[in-house]
């Protein structure tokens, strides 16, 4: 089922794989490794700042800081890190599409990223409206704890799945 779902992407992956720019990136001595390094650095920056916000939502850290203040200050930095991680990630995928196409951990990572997006949107449109009620409170409401816990778990699995991509156990 999983393979059938991805089948339409197969021809795209094969097409990109043959592109001269993709081949050049794949065979580069420095560009490809340093793109990987930048990706890891960006993910660390971005995930680190997401995780501290999740800890605040769970009520585990930075409880003396109003949530709205933490969110307002960290959001631009999170978006900056996400842009770097996203662009370098896209370039890395572009450089070796067939390798990622057939990798279960890559697709696990992508799926988790999509779910974190849904979780963030759900928080933004529902729980975010209640922030003024608990902004300075030492206890966060159940909905905020769920949003933080889900985000914390999913970003951890994104990192784990990302690190496991070289282990193509289920090709």
């Amino acid at each position: 089922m999983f393979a059938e779902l991805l089948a339409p992407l197969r021809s795209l992956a094969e097409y990109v794989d043959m592109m001269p720019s993709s081949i050049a990136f794949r065979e580069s001595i420095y560009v490809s490794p340093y793109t990987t390094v930048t990706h890891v650095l960006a993910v660390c920056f971005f995930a680190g700042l997401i995780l501290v916000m999740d800890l605040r939502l769970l009520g585990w850290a930075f409880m003396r800081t109003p949530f709205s203040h933490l969110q307002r200050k960290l959001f631009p930095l999170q978006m900056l890190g996400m842009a770097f991680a996203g662009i370098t990630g896209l370039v890395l995928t572009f450089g070796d599409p067939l390798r990622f196409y057939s990798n279960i951990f890559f697709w696990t990572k992508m799926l988790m990223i999509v779910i974190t997006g849904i979780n963030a949107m759900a928080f933004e449109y529902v729980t975010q409206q209640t922030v003024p009620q608990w902004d300075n409170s030492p206890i966060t409401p159940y909905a905020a704890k769920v949003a933080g816990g889900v985000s914390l778990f999913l970003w951890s699995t994104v990192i784990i799945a990302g690190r496991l991509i070289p282990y193509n156990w289920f090709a």
Partner: protein
Amino acid sequence: MNRADMTTQRPWLYTQFAIIAAAVVLWWFGWFGVPPAPFEAFFVSMETWPVSKAIGESLWIYPLVQALHLVAMAFFMGAVMLVNLRLMGLGLTQTPLAQVARSAAPWIIGGLVAMFLTGLPQLMQNSSREYYSEYFWRKMSFLLVSLIMLTISMRFMTRQSDSAAAPSGFKIVGVAALVFWANVIIAARLIGLFT
């Protein structure tokens, strides 16, 4: 920050400056990638220990500790970034520096413990490759400098400072610390790419 706080913290601020200057000089002259010869025999023998061999033979221990090492790093760096951003006058500026540091401390210490516990098996399993890798020693050099700076910052520079604006010298410490931590990560990733 009031005058009394600044008086007690100034020597530590200058200590940080001296560490930053020494690190930059050593880095510039290439001393951050040199394997320490006295440890050679120990490192080469480490991977022959039965426990190291068991780690290498297991299909899942090595991938698992590699992945958890990165998760611990993300938590650790999140907490470290908030402290150093606060030193730079960015991030949680409405919360006193001391409070930011106190709240970050368990995550910093927990992250370090988790990274040590997941890093050690990786080193044991691969110890001679790591010993002969300049990137491994570059990582360890930056790690040592960063840990000393972090300890001084957390213990002596983040106490009883209530004002939003940190003295300008603190900004240098915050920027340098983040640059050094980034270099720990860069060097760590390069071990696997160029060794």
